[in-house]
């Protein structure tokens, strides 16, 4: 088991290095002089140009720049935003909880609905429920989520007026940022209606973000269950006189969950891409929206670092998924 973990960790190192190279390199691939690019349309005097070049290290050989970059990275220094002039790391840490909150609720929704639906569809294979739910899953999987979000806004916010259109909480509320999670902070603040407001703001974006993972999880659960139900050991459980509930819920499910948990974990990476679109539509102040804004504002230090951080996060999540797989699969856990 230890060897399994170590093996996975070692595997990550070259990948991580590759990620840093890409993050580091893309600014330098930009056609033209990076300093001029950052200066924008205003142009820049030759002296200022030389000053900035020296300051940002662009006049030094490329591999020196790279190692500088790495060095600063390990100290947590990711440079400053060109727009806000504040350290990228600080901005990231401020905005990150918003995305995490959204993502967590989304993946929770997707799992809590997707797994039972998949199990039922497998048990009642070929039934109306099976066909309807799997078609719905396919539709959810085929939908452009930015459009889906807009539709829901039209319907629930526009026509019914039930949900707000943007933001994390009503503008009337203001309370200190304890955890960065609006749901928790609003509860802690004790202000009347704050929690409800936070919840209402969270509902639509999380439904939108959860849609694709839900569809994938439901389909995967169904096919995993179908495969497991045909295995010999399920027949043995039946032969032992175990009830259908126990056969499905204990014997089959326990084995089907192994690939399903892997799927759930991998969906978290997919969530990141979805978060970019969802946050844009709902003006949710998370790192997805931050990245989009930075890209259009040509705030390259932010884009570079954001790329690095997000990829690093996804890698971490995938590592955790791999490790979890090793834990729940007895063939690996008990060699």
């Amino acid at each position, binding site marked *: 088991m230890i060897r399994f973990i170590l093996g996975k960790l070692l595997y990550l190192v*070259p*990948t991580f290095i*590759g*990620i840093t*190279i*890409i993050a580091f390199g*893309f600014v330098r*691939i*930009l056609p033209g002089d990076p300093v001029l690019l950052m200066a924008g349309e205003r142009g820049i005097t030759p002296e200022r140009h030389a000053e900035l070049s020296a300051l940002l290290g662009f006049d030094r050989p490329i591999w020196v720049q790279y190692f500088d970059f790495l060095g600063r990275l390990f100290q947590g220094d990711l440079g400053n935003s060109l727009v806000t002039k504040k350290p990228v790391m600080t901005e990231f840490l401020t905005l990150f909880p918003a995305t995490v909150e959204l993502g967590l609720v989304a993946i929770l929704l997707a799992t809590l609905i997707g797994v039972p639906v998949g199990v039922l569809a497998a048990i009642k294979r070929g039934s109306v429920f099976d066909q309807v739910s799997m*078609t719905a899953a*396919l*539709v959810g*999987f*085929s*939908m*452009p989520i*930015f*459009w*889906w979000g*807009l*539709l829901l*806004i*039209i319907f629930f916010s*526009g026509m019914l007026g039930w949900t707000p259109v943007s933001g994390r909480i009503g503008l009337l509320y203001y309370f200190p940022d304890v955890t960065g999670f609006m749901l928790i902070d609003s509860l802690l603040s004790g202000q009347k209606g704050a929690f409800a407001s936070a919840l209402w703001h969270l509902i639509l974006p999380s439904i939108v973000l959860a849609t694709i993972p839900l569809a994938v999880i439901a389909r995967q659960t169904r096919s995993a269950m179908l495969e497991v139900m045909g295995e010999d050991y399920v027949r043995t459980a039946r032969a032992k006189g175990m009830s259908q509930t126990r056969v499905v819920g204990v014997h089959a499910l326990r084995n089907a969950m192994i690939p399903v948990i892997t799927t759930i974990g991998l969906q978290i*990476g*997919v969530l*990141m*891409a979805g978060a*970019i*679109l969802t946050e*844009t539509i709902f003006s949710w102040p998370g790192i997805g929206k931050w*990245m*989009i804004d930075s*890209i*259009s504002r*040509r705030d390259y230090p932010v*884009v570079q670092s954001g*790329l690095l951080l*997000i*990829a690093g996060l*996804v*890698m971490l999540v*995938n590592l955790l998924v791999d490790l979890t797989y090793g834990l729940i699969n007895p063939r690996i856990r008990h060699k």
Partner: protein
Amino acid sequence: MTDAPARLSDAAIRRQMLAEFWFYFRQNRGAVIGLWVFLVLVFVAVFAQVIAPHDPTQQYRDALLVPPVWQGEGQARFLLGTDAVGRDMLSRLIYGAQYSLFIGIVVVAIALIGGIFVGLLAGFYGGWVDTVIMRVMDVILAFPSLLLALVLVAVLGPGLTNAMIAIAIVYQPHFARLTRAAVMGEKEREYVTAAKVAGAGKLRLMFKTILPNCLAPLIVQATLSFSSAVLDSAALGFLGMGAQPPASEWGTMLAEAREFILRAWWVVTLPGLAILISVLAINLMGDGLRDALDPKLKRS
């Protein structure tokens, strides 16, 4: 003793395989529906100039935000209404099909060819070639696909071509992985050894001997990538990074429509619906393809 069965020619075998495949595919009603819808889409795209009632870029200043014909102030000459600058929705949607199909084909072609080539190299040669290639693929896969595509487009400059290239680069590792896995599985099989002994060169082995047997998973992945490409390019268009206005790409149309979501629902709903239907059709076909190819995989 009975005679040995007559040997079928290569072409006859292929025809038989095709017939079997079609038999299984036909049984999946959803897949057949998907196929029909897709064919309609192709038809619309190819004959857009004939079918579309108006020019998609023509702005009718006197008919801004006209609702579809079945609603209140709808007009018969604009069956699905017009957008904020007076362009006919129906015509724009029809021409949008051209964009979507074009994008799907180009992206899949690039990703497929690149991915197969890379995967063949990695699987065939193994060793450090394999390790290096697969690590690079892993790095690409570590980034959320949309994000990487976005950044690439930001680097290369917004526009349809760059969007397609960016998406193709991001999809390529999937094909590379599949090809590599299939090649590694087939490499040790007897028919490969037989071909090698018969004197087949490396290139011939790669392309003529091994590759045809790895096609099934590649085809399934290709349909998946086709639909993802349509979705992702629409997403890029929506974010302003893909096809630029006044192009009638469905995602770009949605970007322009965003401010009117509460006033003019058709400007928002229809392009998205077009995307949904197209992607759904392709995914249905993909599902059917996978199921139809699967029993063959198991038997061969």
